[in-house]
């Protein structure tokens, strides 16, 4: 039995493993530290930054992109990509608008319809990818355009307003926390983001679906040859992601009190940027919801802070791009070590 004790794998393993885990935490810490540095820096640079109202505005601005990024994280961990999250969000918002405003159904029905629309679209994407073996990039690119078109068709190319549904704007703009603790008027949209993130985190870490999400990204063929119904789990992940996009659709339309059918394209890139800044690997098998949340916050803090500092818009874009590259570069440095 002494045969393998001398191998580097045998001796190096404990140290290497400890290090791998350590620097995994390190990366999240680093992202979190960057966030803190940004917040502190902006606070010092402008007295208007660290105001309750502005912090709430930042969180509010994070809510939609954060929820989309959570959806994108799930798919990206499987080694796939979902380009349709932005237009799917819009599609779900339009569905809610049709159900509530055009058909006059009660609020819960509208909410369920939006979530169901998201999940159904996820089933479509997942099936196209798993059963028809179309690469995720292409399949979701197609879905992105299909959903964009359907949104315009269904809405008749006009925004659908929710004036007939009292309470709709409260989904994102009301404050449950504020009614309990008046000094903290945290918008519901932010609360929902944290809830969605918490649920996604638990699913990823504690459930069989989560374990297969990582396994698919780690080595899909090995999972298939383990006799696992890979297609079913893959579709399940895209369905879950679709449902989460439905939440984002409710949030954005509640915030705008309208379903804007032309909105949504381009939002997938912001979501993917948040995922990547959060340390999730685009090649799959690795990633965290906490990281994604921090990534989304970094983007919002940066955008808001630069605006507060009255940095010209041209330069805001340049800085944001640089941050994305920097974030991924530090992640690469970390991985090169292991």
């Amino acid at each position, binding site marked *: 039995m002494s045969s393998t004790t001398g191998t580097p794998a045998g001796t190096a393993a404990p140290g290497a493993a400890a290090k791998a885990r350590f620097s995994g935490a390190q990366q999240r810490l680093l992202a979190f530290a960057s966030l803190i540095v940004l917040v502190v820096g*902006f606070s010092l640079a*402008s007295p208007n930054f660290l105001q309750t109202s502005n912090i709430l505005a930042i969180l509010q601005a994070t809510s939609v992109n954060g929820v989309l990024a959570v959806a994108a994280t799930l798919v990206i961990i499987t080694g796939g990509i979902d380009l349709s999250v932005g237009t799917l969000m819009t599609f779900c918002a339009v569905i809610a608008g049709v159900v509530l405003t055009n058909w006059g159904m009660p609020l819960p029905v509208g909410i369920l319809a939006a979530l169901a629309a998201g999940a159904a679209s996820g089933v479509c994407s997942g099936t196209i990818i798993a059963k028809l073996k179309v690469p995720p990039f292409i399949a979701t690119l197609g879905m992105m355009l299909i959903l964009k078109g359907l949104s315009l068709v269904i809405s008749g190319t006009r925004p659908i307003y929710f004036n007939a549904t009292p309470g709709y704007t409260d989904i994102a703009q009301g404050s449950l926390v504020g009614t309990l603790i008046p000094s903290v008027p945290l918008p519901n949209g932010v609360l929902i983001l944290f809830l969605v993130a918490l649920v996604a985190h638990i699913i990823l870490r504690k459930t069989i679906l989560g374990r297969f999400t990582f396994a698919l990204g780690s080595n899909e063929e090995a999972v298939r040859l383990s006799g696992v119904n890979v297609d079913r789990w893959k579709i399940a992940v895209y369905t879950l992601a679709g449902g989460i996009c439905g939440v984002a659709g409710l949030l*954005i339309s509640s915030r705008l*009190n309208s379903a804007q059918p032309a909105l949504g394209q381009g939002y997938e890139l912001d979501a993917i940027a948040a995922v990547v800044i959060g340390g999730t690997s685009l090649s799959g098998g690795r990633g965290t919801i906490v990281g994604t949340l921090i990534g989304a916050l970094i983007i919002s803090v940066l955008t808001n802070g630069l605006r507060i500092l009255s*940095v010209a818009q041209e330069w805001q874009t340049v*800085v944001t791009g640089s941050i994305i590259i920097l974030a991924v570069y530090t992640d690469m440095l970390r991985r090169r070590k292991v």
Partner: protein
Amino acid sequence: MITRRNVLAALAAGTLLAATGGIALAQESGQKMYIPVISKGFQHQFWQAVKSGADKAAAEFGVEITFEGPDTESQVDRQIDMLAAALAKQPTAIGFAALDSQAAIPLLQQAKDANIPVIAFDSGVDSDIPVTTAATDNVAAAALAADKMAELIGGKGQIALVVHDQTSRTGVDRRDGFTNRITEKYPEIEIVSTQYGGGDQLQSTEITKSILQANPDLKGIFGANEGSAIGVVNGARELGRQIVIIGYDSGAQQKQAIKDGVMAGAITQNPVGIGYETVKAAVQAAKGESVPKTIDTGFFWYDKSNMDSPEIAAVLYD
């Protein structure tokens, strides 16, 4: 390695903040009035012309302004975030061109509660919160374009529209202003097609070509904004078709097309005036002076014959 990375990150963050802080400090020195202007766009020449008007007024009245707008006119929520950030800066007054009025109402209410006057510009805000609106009457302007089109094609025949957007106010107003005038006044003119190219030149070019292919007898096309109009010009040129093209707004390419006779003429708004009047009204409102409920910033028809006259040349932009 770990320390190297931390140093790297800290360095990057530090450089970033130093740079932005420097800009900020430079701008925040002095206790000038501060007026953020949130527009509907940023990259287009039209919005840059509005910005130049706003800058001109800022210099004249000794106030400080910032000018921002989302990348595309569909990004309603991005504009709302910009408005929220502007409010956080505790401005003296705000200039705002709403992409969607309803979406902005909570924030506008917040501005009203904080006694920050709001000046609407470009298109109205469906609310009584703004103290005034500085805008072009797009419906009337497009109707003028329709009259010119009818005149130039001899009062009968087929025409088409290439519009930038089917959801935004300006897109809808210009389309309806044009279409309604044609149906009401010119029964012998038939609108065979109305299509949307997102204001994108290339997309509008392709749309134009397909319209021309499908309608060999087409006599004219109205391009409802700068990008659409240039797309129409390009499309007709690529197919070698002689038709009456009427554009909207200006810009170097459109001006050149009119000079070359490819485009019959165009409606121009007064973007520089919009920007100027917005900031001017903001200053007045902040000082407690009264301002009119609406400020019509005007529109003009221009073609080869009058585009060099001082009155027109002043409102055209490159």
